[in-house]
């Protein structure tokens, strides 16, 4: 409750400045949570978080039950990874170029639905490859488009709070999605998970209705300072030192982070009895709960104390977590340690769109910049599992976890040493 009161206060003090500013979108006088558009965004994030769950490592399980070999599953998954990497930046540029961001979200969600149906109906190679490509591309347009709508809805002064709420509802959706799909896979069938995913895309379309009227706001966010021409703004943006360091530090962080959960999960499977799957589920869902609880506060902290502090706070949990896991003898200890993952998840979930909008929000290339950051994160995630796997094969799990902690330390050091503060001094200053 106290949290909401404070949010309202910040919003009220911030609103006049936001109105004067020529910034992104129409002036918004109500707090982000209570406007219809704000509530629409909340629900949109929740349902989108929901439907993204099914497309994770679960695809490998599903294809295995359909008689796929390891090799062909690897092929399908790497096709998805490659097309995601290849489409991040172009998809961002495409979203920049389209004025109606709500339409982008609409078609991205429909594409999600189509991908899930392809998986469910026809799990043979070609439809699966097609579904992987469709899903990869649409997830590259969906995230940036939602961030761009948020930019238009909230205005620059309340952006931290807005992204805090986005992250909160996305992780609630993620947690619910994981629970629903886990239950569905266990009690019904693996195939039903994808039908469920496809069905859950329908409610995701409903909250778009209040947002669709914001079409001109989206245009303002995307094209605001674009008078100098499309390419003129691009070069200084992609050579902006802040964006490069931000992307590099996120790549390092993800390199150290992505492999931790699989490592811990297989250690649990090896050492704990029949409760292992439950503990792994807890390791996945608990961080989502933490993210849901703290991300609005994280967003507020980023507005009041600056981005750098929050980024450091999130990043420094990784070396600590790696060390704790490496030192822990009891695998059940893994679950409480995952709280740290939630802190990092909230910080990154809020700061990726927030810092990117600090740097590129008015360049007309906001989505392209987000795609660039997403590309860096994707590289880190892709290399992480092979790096950790190689170390674990040779030296064992503990050394692999220590190595990942070391990478996390390097990421933290990079932020500490090189990442400047990107917050504009006062909300609303030109």
């Amino acid at each position, binding site marked *: 409750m106290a949290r909401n009161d404070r949010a309202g206060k910040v919003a009220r003090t911030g609103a006049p400045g936001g109105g004067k500013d020529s910034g992104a979108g129409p002036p918004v006088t109500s707090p982000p949570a209570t406007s219809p558009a704000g509530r629409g965004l909340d629900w949109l994030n929740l349902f989108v978080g929901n439907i993204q769950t099914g497309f994770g490592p679960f695809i490998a*399980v599903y294809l295995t039950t359909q008689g796929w070999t390891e090799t062909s599953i690897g092929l399908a998954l*790497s096709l998805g990874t490659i097309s*995601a990497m290849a489409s991040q930046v172009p998809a961002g540029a495409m979203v920049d170029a389209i004025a109606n961001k709500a339409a982008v979200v609409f078609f991205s969600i429909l594409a999600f639905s189509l991908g899930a149906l392809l998986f469910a109906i026809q799990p043979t*190679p070609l439809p699966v490859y*097609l579904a992987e490509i469709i899903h990869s591309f649409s997830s590259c347009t969906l995230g940036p488009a939602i961030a761009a709508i948020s930019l238009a809805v909230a205005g620059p002064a309340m952006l931290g709070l807005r992204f805090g709420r986005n992250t909160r509802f996305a992780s609630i959706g993620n947690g619910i999605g994981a629970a629903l*799909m886990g239950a569905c896979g266990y009690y019904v069938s693996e195939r039903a998970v994808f039908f469920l995913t496809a069905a859950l895309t329908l409610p995701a379309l409903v909250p778009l209705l209040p947002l669709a009227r914001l079409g001109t706001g989206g245009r303002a966010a995307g094209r605001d300072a674009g008078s100098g021409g499309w390419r003129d703004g691009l070069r200084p943006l992609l050579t902006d030192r802040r964006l490069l360091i931000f992307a590099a530090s996120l790549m390092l962080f993800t390199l150290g982070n992505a492999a931790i959960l699989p490592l811990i999960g297989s250690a649990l499977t090896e050492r704990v009895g029949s409760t*292992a799957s439950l503990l792994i589920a807890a390791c996945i869902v608990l961080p989502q709960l933490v993210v849901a609880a703290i991300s609005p506060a994280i967003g507020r902290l980023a507005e009041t104390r600056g981005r750098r502090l929050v980024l450091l706070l999130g990043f420094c949990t990784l070396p600590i977590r790696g060390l704790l896991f490496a030192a822990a003898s009891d695998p059940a200890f893994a679950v409480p340690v995952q709280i740290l993952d939630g802190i990092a998840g909230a910080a990154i979930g809020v700061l990726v769109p927030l810092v990117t909008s600090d740097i590129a929000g008015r360049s007309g290339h906001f989505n392209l910049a987000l795609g660039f950051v997403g590309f860096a994160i994707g590289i880190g995630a892709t290399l992480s599992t092979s790096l950790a796997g190689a170390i674990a094969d040779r030296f064992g799990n503990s050394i692999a976890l220590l190595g990942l902690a070391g990478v996390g330390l390097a990421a933290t050091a990079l932020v500490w040493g090189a990442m400047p503060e990107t917050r504009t001094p006062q909300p609303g200053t030109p």
Partner: protein
Amino acid sequence: MTIRGSGLRRRLLCGLAAAAPVLTILASGGLAASPGEPPAAQATGQKPAQAGPAASTTAPAAPATAPPKPATAPAATAAAPPKPKNLEPLQSAASSGILGKKVTGPDGRELGLIVDVVVAADGHPLAAIIDFGGFLGVGSRKIAIDWRLLRFDPGQPDWQVALRLSRAEVQAAPEYKPDAATNQMVGPPWEAPASRNGEK
């Protein structure tokens, strides 16, 4: 949650190789043309692998699981009209494919999925590779289980492979790595480890 697989280098190459035909098909607008078996089978070789273990449950000398025998090669490339001689029935009431089958313990609870079958030079199955445990694909481990520890019940609808050992007896088995020089499998507990035929 977009973490995906390991063995990256190989997969990257495979993925690139697969992207080309898929994209050409997309470009030519032929994507609706049902499963598109020819390019898929070419790229993955999945279908033959699927048929192999199934046959081996009924007839140990199944042609598809015995790659060293050159005699089976002409049958595989059967593009020419003449049908292979000696066609024999493979009844679904008495035989079944096995990749992706669920494995259950003595208590009836699911332990994992069969992802591969390891065979000896004569095509005789030695071990099943089981993707064991995990939640939504996270945290599962591959372990090798002696083929003789498994019971099959093809013909029943939705049948599952029954493992005669409990979860506790197999869960700490060393992880199976296809590329390793030596792997270890869980053998029957009533046998001395030295007498196992996997050591040949």
